[in-house]
């Protein structure tokens, strides 16, 4: 199976080509959508085969590289079109094709009747292809191809409803902010390539070769620079401070797109990249600290905004930004396994949440449409009590909410708790650990609050749309609810493959399979840490670990209780609160005015500078001088114009001058 790794990205690419070129003529939605989903399913099958094959090998042999052809070669620079299969990429392709397939199926139902149905599936297949290239690429440059490719598909799908200006704006914003990140990514590639080549004569962008030569990299210094350059790339793609503002706007795209691209897969690319380059980050504490701080800050910052949004998808968008912050916090404290673990569980429950919100919006839209109402189907203030009309959506949504809130027994608990524990106990950041942990804990509390606020406002209480519309509320068809059920199930059980040792020991020593699986990827970094920080190793007692675990449960329950109090028990309180602190509410509701600040700081000055260069410099200064010369030439040519007519006179002049010059030079000699 490993030999056929190339098929994994190829299948969705075929789907893209067929649907892109012929989809419009095929017209039949079942064929177009079915083909799109089938292609991803084929990739899923191949991926599963590869995974099984890897499992069958001893841990140290779980690595396979397949070069298809040499892509770019010039001087010492060489980049292949080749794939790297190892435990990390195998895990990623399973998530991408698995969740991707479910979302393709869901889309067949959700996008039913849309004008650009074929276009949607072509883009979605292209996205899947690019994402698979990103995770399978055997070198940084091919990863970059996927990296920009997913950005392009994100742009195209956000702008899917291109007749809406807001959609076009959001797409462009996403692309440009991602490009800011890509700028960093490119500089990272350049610096790493140049440094390894210049100082050690190792000219390569191949991941395996870089990893094998990681010991040549110094600690700190240029490595910090490289790590931070790559991290700029990650902040763009994974929507971290300061480049996160595109993600909430990206909700302009169809909801399944938000689930696939802006929750489960693409936005986690930055986390994957740090995992892939862990040997670089581990060599720079400064860079790791930056990653941890940015992650923690994003986690809490986005969570605060999430508490005040009324659009169901925007709450989930800020939630995604915040959860990605948790993953980066994990990477920044050296808990690579935990970060990737959270990436996976988050893919399950957040995809389920987005798809659930899509199901709700779908139903609301339908109901409002029948009642000829122009109310916003995405506004939670119009919802309420939907659990009766949509039981499956409700249940799967609730399960995923419990998972993200961090209630024990559900997947999110295991991954998030591991991150918080590592933030507290890691050997890297000393006294700052407590702050990192505290920030994460508070963000977790906010998470539980805003997610249950969402559940309460949407599924509980009284339905707030007109009675006429209410009658049209209905559960979504199976094509939509089936993916919800599968993802809901995964949101519950997905965490059990990564049981913390503490709990595993209780049940007769069940190992942490997830950690074992990724061990070959992160072993080098762990070894390096042990060498470097042997002196700083602090042993924490089991009691402390249990205590912190208990604390995070309490935190989640507090968040849920507050949400219950405010939105079920005494719903008048939020109103009083906003009346008491109008400025604060306005600021949070308006996302702390970050977009406006960016406009003021970057967008407007750039335009002004452009205008100044054009009208001030080009037109006034340079052209002014040229026009001056021109009038002199015109004056001169009028002297000899009796000799020449028409347009030829200018050229004649040149020949005359040319000959004069030749003679002059000759005579002078």
């Amino acid at each position, binding site marked *: 199976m490993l030999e056929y790794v190339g098929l994994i990205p190829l299948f969705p690419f075929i789907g893209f080509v067929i649907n892109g070129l012929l989809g*419009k003529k095929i017209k039949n939605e079942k064929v177009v959508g079915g083909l799109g989903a089938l292609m991803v399913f084929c990739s899923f099958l191949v991926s599963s085969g590869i995974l099984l094959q890897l499992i069958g090998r001893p841990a140290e042999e779980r690595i396979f590289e397949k070069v298809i052809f*040499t*892509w*770019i*070669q*010039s*001087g*010492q*620079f*060489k980049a292949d079109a080749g794939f790297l299969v190892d435990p990390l990429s195998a895990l990623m392709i399973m998530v991408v094709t698995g969740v991707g397939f479910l979302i393709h199926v869901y889309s067949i139902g959700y996008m039913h009747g849309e004008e650009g149905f074929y276009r949607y599936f072509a883009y979605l297949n292209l996205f899947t292809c690019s994402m698979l290239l990103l995770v399978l690429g055997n070198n940084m*440059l091919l990863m*970059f191809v996927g990296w*920009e*490719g997913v950005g*392009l598909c994100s*742009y195209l799908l956000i*702008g899917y409803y*291109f*007749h809406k*200006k807001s*959609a*076009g704006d959001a*797409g*462009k914003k996403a*692309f440009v902010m991602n*490009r800011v990140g*890509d*700028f960093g990514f*490119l*500089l990272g*590639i*350049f610096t790493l390539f*140049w440094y390894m080549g*210049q100082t050690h004569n*190792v000219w*390569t962008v191949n991941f*395996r*070769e870089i990893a*094998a030569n990681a*010991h040549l990299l110094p600690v700190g210094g240029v490595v910090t620079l490289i790590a931070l350059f790559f991290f700029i790339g990650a902040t763009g793609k994974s929507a971290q401070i300061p480049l996160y503002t595109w993600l909430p706007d990206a909700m302009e795209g169809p909801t399944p797109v938000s689930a696939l691209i802006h929750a489960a897969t693409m936005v986690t690319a930055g986390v994957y990249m740090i995992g892939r380059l862990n040997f670089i980050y581990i060599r720079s504490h400064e860079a790791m600290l930056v990653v941890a701080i940015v992650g923690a800050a994003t986690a809490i910052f986005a969570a605060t905004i999430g508490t005040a949004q009324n659009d169901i998808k925007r709450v989930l968008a800020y939630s995604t930004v915040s959860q990605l912050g948790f993953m980066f916090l994990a990477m920044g404290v050296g808990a690579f396994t935990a970060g990737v673990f959270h990436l996976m569980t988050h893919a399950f429950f957040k995809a389920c949440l987005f798809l659930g919100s899509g199901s709700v919006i779908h139903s609301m839209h339908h109901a409002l449409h029948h009642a000829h109402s122009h109310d916003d189907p995405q506004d939670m203030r119009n919802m309420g009590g939907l659990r009766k009309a949509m039981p499956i959506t409700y249940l799967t949504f609730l399960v995923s909410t419990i998972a993200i809130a961090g209630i024990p027994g559900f997947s999110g608990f295991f991954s998030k708790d591991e991150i918080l524990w590592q933030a507290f106990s890691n050997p890297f950041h000393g006294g700052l650990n407590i702050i990192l942990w505290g920030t994460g804990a508070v963000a977790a509390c906010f998470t539980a609050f805003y997610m249950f606020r969402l559940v309460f406002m949407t599924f509980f209480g009284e339905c707030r749309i007109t009675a006429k519309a209410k009658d049209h509320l209905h559960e979504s068809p199976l094509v939509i609810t089936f993916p919800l059920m599968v993802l809901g199930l995964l949101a519950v059980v997905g965490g059990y493959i990564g049981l913390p040792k503490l709990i595993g020991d209780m049940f007769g020593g069940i190992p942490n399979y997830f950690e074992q699986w990724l061990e070959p990827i992160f072993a080098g970094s762990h070894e390096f840490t042990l060498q470097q920080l042997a002196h700083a190793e602090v042993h924490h007692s089991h009691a402390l670990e249990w205590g912190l675990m208990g604390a995070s449960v309490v935190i989640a329950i507090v968040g849920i209780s507050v949400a219950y109090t405010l939105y079920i028990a005494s719903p008048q309180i939020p109103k009083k609160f906003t009346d008491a602190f109008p400025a604060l509410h306005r600021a949070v509701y308006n996302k702390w005015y970050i977009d406006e600040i960016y406009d003021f700081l970057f967008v407007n000055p*750039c*335009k002004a*500078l*452009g*205008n100044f*260069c054009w009208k001030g410099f*080009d037109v006034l200064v*340079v052209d002014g001088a*040229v026009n001056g010369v*021109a009038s002199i*030439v015109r004056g001169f040519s009028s002297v000899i114009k009796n000799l020449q007519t028409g*347009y030829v006179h*200018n*050229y004649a002049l040149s020949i005359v*001058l*040319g000959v004069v*010059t*030749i003679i002059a*030079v*000759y005579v002078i000699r």
Partner: protein
Amino acid sequence: MNSMPILSLITFLPLAGVLLLFFLPKESKGLLRSIALIVSLVVFVVSLPIVTGFQTNAEFQFNEFAPWIAAGPFQMNYSVGIDGISLWLVILTTFIMPIAILSTWTAVEERVKEYMICLLLLETGMLGAFISLDLFLFYVFWEIMLIPMYFIIGIWGGKNKIYAALKFFIYTFLGSVLMLVALLVLYFKAGAGDFNLMKFYELSLDPATQTWMFLAFALAFAIKVPMFPLHTWLPDAHTEAPTAGSVILAAIMLKMGTYGFVRFAMPLFPNATEQFTPLIATLSVIGIIYAALVAMVQEDVKKLVAYSSVAHLGFVMLGVFALNQQGVAGGMLQMINHGISTGALFLIVGFIYERRHTRLIADFGGLSKQMPVFATIFMIVTLSSIGLPGTNGFVGEFLVLIGAYESSLRWYALIATSGVILSAVYMLWMFQRVMFGELNNPKNQELKDLNAREVVIMIPLLVMIFWMGIYPTPFIEKMTPAIDKVIAYSKGKKLAAALQQAIPSAPGPAVMQPAILESK
């Protein structure tokens, strides 16, 4: 290898076409167009054997030599040949010409005969310049090229055509005169008795002379590129020229400037090259950022594309002056890429201009709904222009930047890299305003999608966009040895040393030391 003078054949076939057109009646426009198209297609087909027959080494090939003019102390020869650097530029020229001729098939109705004559004459001039190995011959072709382009802008141009043509002329003329003077001085300094480029390469000039010579040549070429701040003729010339004129100007004529640097200014004057590298790099980087900023605020699509040219050519110059394999190869690739992508963009602008007789961005919006095929093609070309991986633009831009980053131009490369952000801003913003949004202008609601001729024009360009993006190896491979040679000359090494240099970095898969994998 047969002894057919293939380069002369390619170069002068268009001239034969011109003669043929002379004898055709003015009125039979269809026939005139068809003949011109057929001639350009034949030239393209005839030019293909130079790719297949090209030997991947640093030597000039398909050489032809004949004494030409002997006047007083001057001996001018007809000496032509190509190496890996000029090879692709010749092919680019023969490839673009049929497309250019097809592009204004219906747009030009006035003086069709003269128009087609100008286009074919232009082709001869451009091809001749790329194959000349005699400096004087190069100069002659360089001048020949200007006349038809001047007419194309001045006669078949838009509203402001006279102003644009004059401006184009003054700028290039200024450069030409300086180059001619420098050429003569060089000739006397060398005392070689002829203008053979090979002999000039072997010349050791004192640094002071080099400085002046370099400045004269560089100015002529920099105007042509155009480099900041000598670029202001370009937006006007591009905007006023008919589509074919803009396409040829962007795709081929601007390359005369960058080609001039690679072929003449740098290898002839190595000391001066070293001395002026910081200046050129500075101007290139300013050009990249400056042109992008100005492009961002343009209201006219064609002007926007013209300014984007200035930014792209800034990348070429930066790469070329990095003087290492990646930088120069990237610069050379970017020259071809720019020809394809920007050529395609001008064609696209031509399509909508022919339909709406306006190029103002504000007059459009929502065209995607009305013209889906056009929208798809426009999107692909836009992405290639902003260097998306998988398209040709990425390979060139990446090699330029990584080459410059490895060289002494690291800081310049760092700033230039930010150009990737700006190009996305201005291109996508323009695309959004033209193609997305509501289709609310009644004049746009009647627009027809691309016709067969227009699609046929675009297809070869689209194929090249992906081919060069996904499998650029054949292009890079053929130019590698010639680039090594140029680098060696430009760094002031003599031929023997140059060949020594060229051997270790000759093409071949094994560049990486196998030992590094074991060293764990």
